[in-house]
Protein backbone atom coordinates (compact mmCIF):
# COMPACT_ATOMS: atom_id res chain seq x y z
CA UNK A 1 0.00 0.00 0.00
CA UNK A 2 2.81 2.40 0.81
CA UNK A 3 4.16 2.08 -2.79
CA UNK A 4 0.79 3.16 -4.04
CA UNK A 5 0.63 6.15 -1.69
CA UNK A 6 4.09 7.33 -2.67
CA UNK A 7 3.40 7.05 -6.40
CA UNK A 8 0.02 8.73 -6.01
CA UNK A 9 1.51 11.61 -4.04
CA UNK A 10 4.24 12.02 -6.63
CA UNK A 11 1.70 12.01 -9.44
CA UNK A 12 -0.59 14.56 -7.81
CA UNK A 13 2.35 16.90 -7.14
CA UNK A 14 3.59 16.38 -10.71
CA UNK A 15 0.21 17.25 -12.19
CA UNK A 16 -0.50 20.35 -10.11
CA UNK A 17 3.04 21.66 -10.59
CA UNK A 18 3.04 20.73 -14.27
CA UNK A 19 -0.18 22.56 -15.12
CA UNK A 20 1.13 25.77 -13.55
CA UNK A 21 4.58 25.14 -15.02
CA UNK A 22 3.15 25.27 -18.54
CA UNK A 23 2.11 28.87 -18.00
CA UNK A 24 5.40 29.76 -16.28
CA UNK A 25 7.35 28.48 -19.28
CA UNK A 26 5.16 30.28 -21.79
CA UNK A 27 5.61 33.50 -19.81
CA UNK A 28 9.38 32.91 -19.78
CA UNK A 29 9.25 32.82 -16.00
CA UNK A 30 10.32 29.22 -15.43
CA UNK A 31 12.84 30.22 -12.80
CA UNK A 32 10.20 31.96 -10.72
CA UNK A 33 9.16 28.55 -9.40
CA UNK A 34 12.71 27.91 -8.27
CA UNK A 35 12.87 31.36 -6.70
CA UNK A 36 9.59 30.93 -4.84
CA UNK A 37 10.54 27.52 -3.53
CA UNK A 38 13.63 29.02 -1.89
CA UNK A 39 12.28 32.42 -0.93
CA UNK A 40 9.49 31.01 1.22
CA UNK A 41 11.94 29.72 3.81
CA UNK A 42 11.77 32.87 5.97
CA UNK A 43 7.98 32.68 5.72
CA UNK A 44 8.01 29.18 7.18
CA UNK A 45 10.35 30.20 9.99
CA UNK A 46 8.41 33.34 10.84
CA UNK A 47 5.13 31.41 10.83
CA UNK A 48 6.72 28.90 13.20
CA UNK A 49 8.14 31.54 15.53
CA UNK A 50 4.80 33.37 15.54
CA UNK A 51 2.58 30.41 16.29
CA UNK A 52 4.99 27.94 17.85
CA UNK A 53 3.41 25.11 15.93
CA UNK A 54 4.53 23.15 12.95
CA UNK A 55 1.16 22.21 11.49
CA UNK A 56 0.65 22.44 7.76
CA UNK A 57 -1.87 25.26 7.69
CA UNK A 58 0.35 27.71 9.60
CA UNK A 59 3.33 26.80 7.44
CA UNK A 60 1.22 27.19 4.30
CA UNK A 61 0.05 30.64 5.29
CA UNK A 62 3.55 31.84 6.16
CA UNK A 63 5.10 30.40 3.06
CA UNK A 64 2.27 31.46 0.77
CA UNK A 65 2.54 35.06 1.93
CA UNK A 66 6.26 35.08 1.27
CA UNK A 67 5.71 33.49 -2.13
CA UNK A 68 3.39 36.26 -3.22
CA UNK A 69 5.74 38.86 -1.72
CA UNK A 70 8.60 37.34 -3.73
CA UNK A 71 6.59 37.74 -6.93
CA UNK A 72 5.77 41.32 -6.09
CA UNK A 73 9.43 42.15 -5.41
CA UNK A 74 10.53 40.45 -8.65
CA UNK A 75 7.89 42.32 -10.65
CA UNK A 76 8.81 45.60 -8.98
CA UNK A 77 12.55 45.24 -9.68
CA UNK A 78 11.85 44.19 -13.26
CA UNK A 79 9.15 46.68 -14.23
CA UNK A 80 9.91 49.74 -12.12
CA UNK A 81 13.61 49.18 -11.44
CA UNK A 82 14.37 48.31 -15.09
CA UNK A 83 16.44 45.32 -13.98
CA UNK A 84 16.47 42.27 -16.27
CA UNK A 85 13.94 39.58 -15.33
CA UNK A 86 16.57 36.94 -14.54
CA UNK A 87 18.65 39.34 -12.45
CA UNK A 88 15.61 40.42 -10.43
CA UNK A 89 14.74 36.77 -9.77
CA UNK A 90 18.31 35.99 -8.71
CA UNK A 91 18.64 38.94 -6.35
CA UNK A 92 15.25 38.42 -4.73
CA UNK A 93 15.33 34.75 -3.86
CA UNK A 94 18.93 34.54 -2.70
CA UNK A 95 18.54 37.22 -0.07
CA UNK A 96 15.16 35.97 1.12
CA UNK A 97 16.53 32.44 1.41
CA UNK A 98 19.57 33.76 3.27
CA UNK A 99 17.31 35.60 5.73
CA UNK A 100 15.51 32.31 6.30
CA UNK A 101 18.80 30.54 7.04
CA UNK A 102 19.80 33.24 9.53
CA UNK A 103 16.40 33.08 11.24
CA UNK A 104 16.66 29.32 11.60
CA UNK A 105 20.19 29.30 12.99
CA UNK A 106 19.61 32.26 15.31
CA UNK A 107 16.16 31.61 16.77
CA UNK A 108 15.14 28.04 16.30
CA UNK A 109 18.29 26.31 17.51
CA UNK A 110 16.48 24.27 20.14
CA UNK A 111 13.62 23.05 18.01
CA UNK A 112 13.26 20.61 15.22
CA UNK A 113 13.22 22.85 12.17
CA UNK A 114 16.14 22.55 9.85
CA UNK A 115 16.94 23.35 6.26
CA UNK A 116 17.22 19.68 5.46
CA UNK A 117 13.58 18.91 6.10
CA UNK A 118 12.38 22.17 4.58
CA UNK A 119 14.41 21.85 1.42
CA UNK A 120 14.56 18.17 0.74
CA UNK A 121 11.35 16.81 2.25
CA UNK A 122 11.05 13.06 2.07
CA UNK A 123 8.45 11.47 -0.06
CA UNK A 124 9.24 8.05 1.44
CA UNK A 125 7.74 9.20 4.77
CA UNK A 126 4.41 10.13 3.20
CA UNK A 127 2.68 6.83 3.99
CA UNK A 128 3.80 6.98 7.66
CA UNK A 129 1.87 10.11 8.63
CA UNK A 130 -1.70 8.95 8.12
CA UNK A 131 -5.01 10.34 9.29
CA UNK A 132 -6.70 7.95 11.68
CA UNK A 133 -10.36 8.61 12.40
CA UNK A 134 -11.87 8.33 15.86
CA UNK A 135 -13.34 4.99 14.90
CA UNK A 136 -9.81 3.79 14.30
CA UNK A 137 -9.98 3.50 10.51
CA UNK A 138 -6.93 4.64 8.65
CA UNK A 139 -8.02 6.84 5.75
CA UNK A 140 -4.61 7.36 4.20
CA UNK A 141 -1.71 9.78 4.43
CA UNK A 142 -2.24 13.39 5.47
CA UNK A 143 -0.01 14.71 2.68
CA UNK A 144 -2.25 13.08 0.12
CA UNK A 145 -5.27 15.07 1.28
CA UNK A 146 -3.35 18.32 1.31
CA UNK A 147 -1.96 17.80 -2.18
CA UNK A 148 -5.25 16.45 -3.48
CA UNK A 149 -6.99 19.65 -2.37
CA UNK A 150 -4.31 21.76 -4.02
CA UNK A 151 -4.71 19.81 -7.26
CA UNK A 152 -8.48 20.32 -7.29
CA UNK A 153 -7.99 24.06 -6.72
CA UNK A 154 -5.35 24.29 -9.46
CA UNK A 155 -7.60 22.49 -11.95
CA UNK A 156 -10.52 24.76 -11.06
CA UNK A 157 -8.38 27.87 -11.39
CA UNK A 158 -6.94 26.91 -14.76
CA UNK A 159 -10.22 25.69 -16.24
CA UNK A 160 -12.13 28.81 -15.19
CA UNK A 161 -9.38 31.23 -16.14
CA UNK A 162 -8.07 29.33 -19.16
CA UNK A 163 -8.88 32.04 -21.72
CA UNK A 164 -7.49 34.78 -19.50
CA UNK A 165 -4.32 32.87 -18.62
CA UNK A 166 -3.75 32.04 -22.27
CA UNK A 167 -4.22 35.53 -23.63
CA UNK A 168 -2.19 37.21 -20.89
CA UNK A 169 0.62 34.73 -21.55
CA UNK A 170 0.56 35.16 -25.31
CA UNK A 171 -0.05 38.88 -25.68
CA UNK A 172 -0.43 40.74 -22.37
CA UNK A 173 -0.68 44.18 -23.97
CA UNK A 174 -3.52 43.07 -26.23
CA UNK A 175 -5.24 41.50 -23.23
CA UNK A 176 -5.12 44.86 -21.44
CA UNK A 177 -6.54 46.54 -24.55
CA UNK A 178 -9.44 44.07 -24.34
CA UNK A 179 -9.99 44.98 -20.70
CA UNK A 180 -8.40 41.84 -19.20
CA UNK A 181 -5.95 42.76 -16.45
CA UNK A 182 -2.58 41.15 -17.19
CA UNK A 183 -1.28 42.14 -13.75
CA UNK A 184 -4.17 40.53 -11.89
CA UNK A 185 -3.81 37.21 -13.71
CA UNK A 186 -0.07 37.27 -13.28
CA UNK A 187 -0.43 37.64 -9.51
CA UNK A 188 -3.18 35.02 -9.35
CA UNK A 189 -0.94 32.57 -11.20
CA UNK A 190 2.00 33.37 -8.93
CA UNK A 191 -0.15 32.98 -5.82
CA UNK A 192 -1.12 29.52 -7.04
CA UNK A 193 2.51 28.68 -7.78
CA UNK A 194 3.43 29.72 -4.22
CA UNK A 195 0.75 27.68 -2.49
CA UNK A 196 1.29 24.65 -4.68
CA UNK A 197 5.02 24.81 -4.13
CA UNK A 198 4.64 25.07 -0.38
CA UNK A 199 2.00 22.38 -0.09
CA UNK A 200 3.95 19.98 -2.28
CA UNK A 201 7.30 20.65 -0.74
CA UNK A 202 6.57 19.54 2.75
CA UNK A 203 6.09 16.05 1.44
CA UNK A 204 8.29 15.80 -1.61
CA UNK A 205 10.98 18.46 -1.12
CA UNK A 206 11.94 21.57 -3.02
CA UNK A 207 14.16 19.91 -5.60
CA UNK A 208 11.41 17.64 -6.87
CA UNK A 209 8.89 20.49 -6.86
CA UNK A 210 11.15 22.62 -9.04
CA UNK A 211 11.78 19.66 -11.34
CA UNK A 212 8.05 18.96 -11.68
CA UNK A 213 7.31 22.64 -12.27
CA UNK A 214 9.63 22.90 -15.23
CA UNK A 215 10.84 19.64 -16.77
CA UNK A 216 7.53 17.97 -17.82
CA UNK A 217 6.15 21.28 -19.15
CA UNK A 218 9.39 21.97 -21.05
CA UNK A 219 9.21 18.47 -22.57
CA UNK A 220 5.58 18.92 -23.59
CA UNK A 221 6.40 22.34 -25.06
CA UNK A 222 8.76 20.69 -27.54
CA UNK A 223 6.06 18.46 -29.01
CA UNK A 224 2.79 20.42 -28.60
CA UNK A 225 0.99 22.50 -31.17
CA UNK A 226 -1.76 23.64 -28.83
CA UNK A 227 -1.84 24.81 -25.24
CA UNK A 228 -4.41 22.19 -24.20
CA UNK A 229 -2.29 19.40 -25.67
CA UNK A 230 0.73 20.82 -23.88
CA UNK A 231 -1.07 20.72 -20.52
CA UNK A 232 -2.36 17.17 -21.03
CA UNK A 233 1.05 15.92 -22.16
CA UNK A 234 2.64 17.59 -19.14
CA UNK A 235 0.30 15.65 -16.85
CA UNK A 236 1.12 12.40 -18.64
CA UNK A 237 4.87 13.01 -18.45
CA UNK A 238 4.54 13.92 -14.77
CA UNK A 239 2.68 10.67 -14.08
CA UNK A 240 5.29 8.62 -15.96
CA UNK A 241 8.11 10.33 -14.06
CA UNK A 242 6.48 9.58 -10.71
CA UNK A 243 5.86 5.90 -11.44
CA UNK A 244 9.15 5.17 -13.23
CA UNK A 245 11.04 7.24 -10.68
CA UNK A 246 9.62 5.22 -7.83
CA UNK A 247 10.69 1.89 -9.32
CA UNK A 248 14.10 3.28 -10.28
CA UNK A 249 14.60 4.36 -6.66
CA UNK A 250 13.38 1.01 -5.37
CA UNK A 251 15.72 -0.94 -7.61
CA UNK A 252 18.73 1.22 -6.72
CA UNK A 253 17.64 1.69 -3.11
CA UNK A 254 18.15 5.44 -3.64
CA UNK A 255 16.30 8.68 -2.91
CA UNK A 256 12.80 8.54 -4.39
CA UNK A 257 12.53 12.29 -5.01
CA UNK A 258 15.94 12.24 -6.68
CA UNK A 259 14.95 9.32 -8.91
CA UNK A 260 11.67 10.97 -9.95
CA UNK A 261 13.49 14.19 -10.87
CA UNK A 262 16.06 12.14 -12.79
CA UNK A 263 13.36 10.42 -14.80
CA UNK A 264 11.88 13.87 -15.63
CA UNK A 265 15.26 14.85 -17.03
CA UNK A 266 15.64 11.57 -18.92
CA UNK A 267 12.22 11.91 -20.57
CA UNK A 268 13.16 15.45 -21.60
CA UNK A 269 16.47 14.23 -23.06
CA UNK A 270 14.76 11.43 -25.02
CA UNK A 271 12.11 13.73 -26.47
CA UNK A 272 14.68 16.40 -27.27
CA UNK A 273 16.94 13.92 -29.11
CA UNK A 274 13.97 12.50 -30.99
CA UNK A 275 12.90 15.98 -32.14
CA UNK A 276 16.43 16.80 -33.29
CA UNK A 277 16.70 13.61 -35.31
CA UNK A 278 13.25 14.06 -36.85
CA UNK A 279 13.89 17.69 -37.81
CA UNK A 280 17.15 16.69 -39.51
CA UNK A 281 15.30 14.04 -41.51
CA UNK A 282 12.67 16.57 -42.57
CA UNK A 283 15.26 19.09 -43.74
CA UNK A 284 16.97 16.36 -45.76
CA UNK A 285 13.71 15.48 -47.49
CA UNK A 286 12.91 19.09 -48.33
CA UNK A 287 16.42 19.61 -49.65
CA UNK A 288 16.06 16.59 -51.89
CA UNK A 289 12.69 17.75 -53.15
CA UNK A 290 13.93 21.26 -53.87
CA UNK A 291 16.78 19.78 -55.93
CA UNK A 292 14.27 17.74 -57.90
CA UNK A 293 12.05 20.74 -58.44
Amino acid at each position, binding site marked *: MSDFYIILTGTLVAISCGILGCFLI*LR*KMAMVGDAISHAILPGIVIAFLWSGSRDSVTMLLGAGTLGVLTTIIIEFLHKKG*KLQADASIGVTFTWLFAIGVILISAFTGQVDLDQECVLYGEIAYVPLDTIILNSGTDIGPKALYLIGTVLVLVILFVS*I*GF*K*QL*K*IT*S*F*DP*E*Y*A*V*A*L*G*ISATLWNYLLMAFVSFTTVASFESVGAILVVAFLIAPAATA*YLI*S*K*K*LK*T*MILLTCLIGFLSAILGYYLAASLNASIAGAMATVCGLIFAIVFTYIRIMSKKVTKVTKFESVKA
Partner: protein
Amino acid sequence: MIKQVENPIIEIHDLSVAYERKPVLWDVDLSLPEGQLIGIIGPNGAGKSTLLKAIMGLLPLNSGYIQINGKPLEEMRHKISYVPQRESVDWDFPTSVYEVVMMGRYGQLGLFNRPKKADAEIVMDSLRKVGMDEFKNRQISQLSGGQQQRVFLARALAQQADIYFMDEPFAGVDAATEKAIIKLLGEMSAQNKTVIVVHHDLQSVAKYFDWIILLNMRLVASGPINEAFTPELLQETYGGKLTLLTEISDLIQKHRFPNRE
Protein backbone atom coordinates in the same frame (compact mmCIF):
# COMPACT_ATOMS: atom_id res chain seq x y z
CA MET B 1 -1.72 73.30 -38.68
CA ILE B 2 -4.02 71.58 -36.24
CA LYS B 3 -7.55 71.21 -37.43
CA GLN B 4 -10.18 70.46 -34.79
CA VAL B 5 -13.40 68.74 -35.86
CA GLU B 6 -17.03 68.85 -34.79
CA ASN B 7 -18.34 65.72 -33.01
CA PRO B 8 -14.93 64.01 -32.95
CA ILE B 9 -14.67 60.24 -32.51
CA ILE B 10 -11.47 60.73 -30.54
CA GLU B 11 -10.56 63.81 -28.58
CA ILE B 12 -7.18 64.27 -26.92
CA HIS B 13 -6.53 67.11 -24.51
CA ASP B 14 -3.10 68.33 -23.37
CA LEU B 15 -1.69 64.82 -23.43
CA SER B 16 1.85 64.34 -22.09
CA VAL B 17 3.57 61.01 -21.61
CA ALA B 18 7.03 60.42 -20.16
CA TYR B 19 9.21 57.37 -19.62
CA GLU B 20 11.42 57.75 -16.57
CA ARG B 21 10.82 61.51 -16.51
CA LYS B 22 11.99 61.77 -20.12
CA PRO B 23 9.10 63.22 -22.08
CA VAL B 24 8.04 61.24 -25.13
CA LEU B 25 4.88 63.12 -25.97
CA TRP B 26 4.45 66.73 -25.10
CA ASP B 27 1.18 68.59 -24.92
CA VAL B 28 -0.70 66.83 -27.70
CA ASP B 29 -4.12 68.30 -28.31
CA LEU B 30 -6.21 67.08 -31.21
CA SER B 31 -9.55 65.74 -32.36
CA LEU B 32 -10.21 63.18 -35.05
CA PRO B 33 -13.17 62.72 -37.41
CA GLU B 34 -15.21 59.52 -37.61
CA GLY B 35 -15.01 57.03 -40.48
CA GLN B 36 -11.63 58.05 -41.85
CA LEU B 37 -8.30 56.35 -42.48
CA ILE B 38 -5.93 58.24 -40.25
CA GLY B 39 -2.14 57.95 -40.44
CA ILE B 40 0.24 58.83 -37.63
CA ILE B 41 3.48 59.93 -39.30
CA GLY B 42 6.82 60.93 -37.84
CA PRO B 43 10.51 59.97 -37.51
CA ASN B 44 11.81 57.15 -35.30
CA GLY B 45 11.37 57.92 -31.62
CA ALA B 46 8.73 60.54 -32.34
CA GLY B 47 6.27 58.81 -30.02
CA LYS B 48 3.95 57.37 -32.67
CA SER B 49 3.38 54.02 -30.92
CA THR B 50 3.30 55.81 -27.58
CA LEU B 51 0.44 58.01 -28.78
CA LEU B 52 -1.46 54.93 -29.93
CA LYS B 53 -0.92 53.11 -26.63
CA ALA B 54 -1.77 56.20 -24.62
CA ILE B 55 -5.12 56.55 -26.40
CA MET B 56 -5.91 52.91 -25.57
CA GLY B 57 -4.93 53.36 -21.93
CA LEU B 58 -1.98 50.98 -22.10
CA LEU B 59 0.39 53.57 -20.63
CA PRO B 60 0.10 55.88 -17.65
CA LEU B 61 -0.48 59.50 -18.70
CA ASN B 62 1.47 62.32 -17.10
CA SER B 63 -1.18 64.84 -17.93
CA GLY B 64 -4.22 65.32 -20.09
CA TYR B 65 -7.20 63.15 -20.88
CA ILE B 66 -8.73 61.27 -23.76
CA GLN B 67 -12.35 60.88 -24.76
CA ILE B 68 -13.74 58.37 -27.20
CA ASN B 69 -17.02 59.51 -28.69
CA GLY B 70 -17.37 61.95 -25.81
CA LYS B 71 -17.01 59.24 -23.16
CA PRO B 72 -14.07 58.05 -21.06
CA LEU B 73 -12.08 55.12 -22.44
CA GLU B 74 -13.27 52.52 -19.92
CA GLU B 75 -16.87 52.84 -21.12
CA MET B 76 -15.81 52.53 -24.76
CA ARG B 77 -13.31 49.66 -24.44
CA HIS B 78 -15.59 47.25 -26.37
CA LYS B 79 -15.69 49.64 -29.34
CA ILE B 80 -11.93 49.61 -29.71
CA SER B 81 -9.74 47.11 -31.47
CA TYR B 82 -5.97 46.84 -31.53
CA VAL B 83 -3.38 45.41 -33.93
CA PRO B 84 -0.06 45.48 -32.06
CA GLN B 85 3.36 45.28 -33.71
CA ARG B 86 4.05 41.79 -34.97
CA GLU B 87 7.31 41.53 -32.99
CA SER B 88 5.52 42.13 -29.70
CA VAL B 89 4.60 38.46 -29.22
CA ASP B 90 6.36 35.09 -29.23
CA TRP B 91 5.27 33.29 -32.39
CA ASP B 92 6.48 29.95 -31.00
CA PHE B 93 3.54 29.93 -28.59
CA PRO B 94 1.72 26.59 -28.91
CA THR B 95 -1.49 27.74 -30.52
CA SER B 96 -3.22 27.75 -33.90
CA VAL B 97 -4.30 30.56 -36.22
CA TYR B 98 -7.94 29.93 -35.33
CA GLU B 99 -7.26 30.16 -31.58
CA VAL B 100 -5.35 33.43 -31.92
CA VAL B 101 -8.21 34.99 -33.86
CA MET B 102 -10.66 33.68 -31.27
CA MET B 103 -8.79 35.79 -28.69
CA GLY B 104 -10.47 38.77 -30.35
CA ARG B 105 -13.73 37.49 -28.86
CA TYR B 106 -12.41 37.13 -25.29
CA GLY B 107 -13.27 40.71 -24.35
CA GLN B 108 -16.96 40.14 -25.08
CA LEU B 109 -16.98 36.62 -23.63
CA GLY B 110 -15.92 37.58 -20.13
CA LEU B 111 -14.72 35.16 -17.47
CA PHE B 112 -17.23 32.31 -17.44
CA ASN B 113 -18.53 32.06 -21.01
CA ARG B 114 -16.98 29.71 -23.52
CA PRO B 115 -16.90 30.61 -27.25
CA LYS B 116 -20.23 29.79 -28.90
CA LYS B 117 -21.21 29.02 -32.47
CA ALA B 118 -21.76 32.70 -33.23
CA ASP B 119 -18.21 33.46 -32.09
CA ALA B 120 -16.84 30.68 -34.27
CA GLU B 121 -18.67 32.16 -37.26
CA ILE B 122 -17.28 35.62 -36.58
CA VAL B 123 -13.79 34.14 -36.37
CA MET B 124 -14.14 32.27 -39.66
CA ASP B 125 -15.59 35.36 -41.30
CA SER B 126 -12.63 37.46 -40.11
CA LEU B 127 -10.20 34.83 -41.39
CA ARG B 128 -11.89 34.89 -44.80
CA LYS B 129 -11.63 38.66 -44.98
CA VAL B 130 -7.85 38.50 -44.66
CA GLY B 131 -7.57 35.41 -46.87
CA MET B 132 -6.33 33.13 -44.11
CA ASP B 133 -9.29 30.74 -43.79
CA GLU B 134 -7.31 27.89 -45.35
CA PHE B 135 -4.66 28.24 -42.67
CA LYS B 136 -6.99 28.12 -39.69
CA ASN B 137 -5.47 24.98 -38.18
CA ARG B 138 -1.88 25.93 -38.82
CA GLN B 139 0.40 26.44 -35.86
CA ILE B 140 1.40 30.09 -35.66
CA SER B 141 5.14 29.32 -35.66
CA GLN B 142 4.78 28.14 -39.26
CA LEU B 143 3.51 31.46 -40.64
CA SER B 144 5.42 33.96 -42.73
CA GLY B 145 5.67 37.58 -41.62
CA GLY B 146 2.84 38.66 -43.89
CA GLN B 147 0.62 35.83 -42.69
CA GLN B 148 1.33 36.73 -39.06
CA GLN B 149 0.20 40.27 -39.79
CA ARG B 150 -3.00 38.99 -41.41
CA VAL B 151 -3.74 36.84 -38.36
CA PHE B 152 -3.39 39.90 -36.14
CA LEU B 153 -5.72 41.82 -38.44
CA ALA B 154 -8.27 39.01 -38.35
CA ARG B 155 -8.08 38.98 -34.56
CA ALA B 156 -8.82 42.71 -34.50
CA LEU B 157 -11.70 42.25 -36.97
CA ALA B 158 -13.17 39.52 -34.75
CA GLN B 159 -13.61 42.14 -32.04
CA GLN B 160 -16.22 43.82 -34.27
CA ALA B 161 -15.22 47.23 -33.03
CA ASP B 162 -15.82 50.71 -34.46
CA ILE B 163 -12.33 52.11 -33.96
CA TYR B 164 -9.19 50.24 -35.00
CA PHE B 165 -5.68 51.06 -33.85
CA MET B 166 -2.88 49.52 -35.90
CA ASP B 167 0.80 49.74 -35.03
CA GLU B 168 2.90 49.56 -38.21
CA PRO B 169 0.78 46.94 -39.99
CA PHE B 170 2.84 47.34 -43.18
CA ALA B 171 6.24 46.78 -41.57
CA GLY B 172 8.08 43.90 -43.23
CA VAL B 173 5.12 42.37 -45.05
CA ASP B 174 5.06 41.09 -48.64
CA ALA B 175 3.40 43.02 -51.46
CA ALA B 176 0.36 40.71 -51.54
CA THR B 177 -0.31 41.26 -47.85
CA GLU B 178 0.13 45.01 -48.17
CA LYS B 179 -2.44 45.00 -50.96
CA ALA B 180 -4.82 42.84 -48.93
CA ILE B 181 -4.50 45.15 -45.92
CA ILE B 182 -5.14 48.25 -48.04
CA LYS B 183 -8.21 46.68 -49.58
CA LEU B 184 -9.48 45.79 -46.13
CA LEU B 185 -8.83 49.31 -44.82
CA GLY B 186 -10.86 50.68 -47.72
CA GLU B 187 -13.77 48.36 -46.91
CA MET B 188 -13.62 49.29 -43.25
CA SER B 189 -13.75 53.00 -43.88
CA ALA B 190 -16.64 52.43 -46.31
CA GLN B 191 -18.52 50.96 -43.32
CA ASN B 192 -17.80 54.16 -41.40
CA LYS B 193 -15.16 52.52 -39.16
CA THR B 194 -12.35 54.74 -37.97
CA VAL B 195 -8.89 53.30 -38.55
CA ILE B 196 -5.78 54.85 -37.03
CA VAL B 197 -2.50 53.53 -38.38
CA VAL B 198 1.07 54.18 -37.26
CA HIS B 199 3.00 54.46 -40.48
CA HIS B 200 6.59 55.31 -41.34
CA ASP B 201 6.77 54.92 -45.11
CA LEU B 202 6.35 58.41 -46.53
CA GLN B 203 6.11 57.04 -50.09
CA SER B 204 2.62 55.68 -49.55
CA VAL B 205 1.14 58.23 -47.15
CA ALA B 206 -0.75 60.29 -49.73
CA LYS B 207 -2.11 57.13 -51.35
CA TYR B 208 -3.41 55.45 -48.20
CA PHE B 209 -4.79 58.03 -45.81
CA ASP B 210 -7.60 60.58 -45.63
CA TRP B 211 -6.24 62.37 -42.60
CA ILE B 212 -2.76 62.54 -41.10
CA ILE B 213 -1.21 63.35 -37.78
CA LEU B 214 2.38 64.60 -38.01
CA LEU B 215 4.21 63.92 -34.79
CA ASN B 216 7.65 64.55 -33.42
CA MET B 217 7.26 64.44 -29.63
CA ARG B 218 4.93 67.37 -29.98
CA LEU B 219 2.09 67.58 -32.43
CA VAL B 220 3.15 69.26 -35.69
CA ALA B 221 -0.05 68.87 -37.65
CA SER B 222 -3.36 67.10 -37.69
CA GLY B 223 -5.64 67.53 -40.66
CA PRO B 224 -6.93 66.26 -43.99
CA ILE B 225 -4.18 64.86 -46.19
CA ASN B 226 -4.31 67.66 -48.77
CA GLU B 227 -3.86 70.32 -46.09
CA ALA B 228 -1.40 68.60 -43.76
CA PHE B 229 0.88 66.72 -46.17
CA THR B 230 2.92 69.73 -47.23
CA PRO B 231 6.69 70.19 -47.59
CA GLU B 232 6.78 72.85 -44.85
CA LEU B 233 5.01 70.67 -42.30
CA LEU B 234 7.04 67.59 -43.22
CA GLN B 235 10.21 69.62 -42.85
CA GLU B 236 9.05 70.76 -39.45
CA THR B 237 8.32 67.14 -38.47
CA TYR B 238 11.56 65.64 -39.75
CA GLY B 239 13.61 68.82 -39.29
CA GLY B 240 17.38 68.55 -39.21
CA LYS B 241 17.59 65.09 -40.71
CA LEU B 242 19.16 66.11 -44.00
CA THR B 243 19.10 62.81 -45.85
CA LEU B 244 15.46 62.48 -45.02
CA LEU B 245 14.80 66.01 -46.16
CA THR B 246 16.06 65.35 -49.65
CA GLU B 247 13.98 62.19 -49.81
CA ILE B 248 10.98 64.20 -48.76
CA SER B 249 11.52 66.85 -51.41
CA ASP B 250 11.77 64.07 -54.01
CA LEU B 251 8.52 62.73 -52.75
CA ILE B 252 6.78 66.03 -52.88
CA GLN B 253 7.97 66.42 -56.45
CA LYS B 254 6.53 63.03 -57.34
CA HIS B 255 3.37 63.90 -55.54
CA ARG B 256 2.95 67.02 -57.66
CA PHE B 257 3.81 65.45 -60.99
CA PRO B 258 2.45 61.94 -60.87
CA ASN B 259 4.46 59.35 -62.71
CA ARG B 260 2.67 58.42 -65.90
CA GLU B 261 4.54 55.34 -66.95
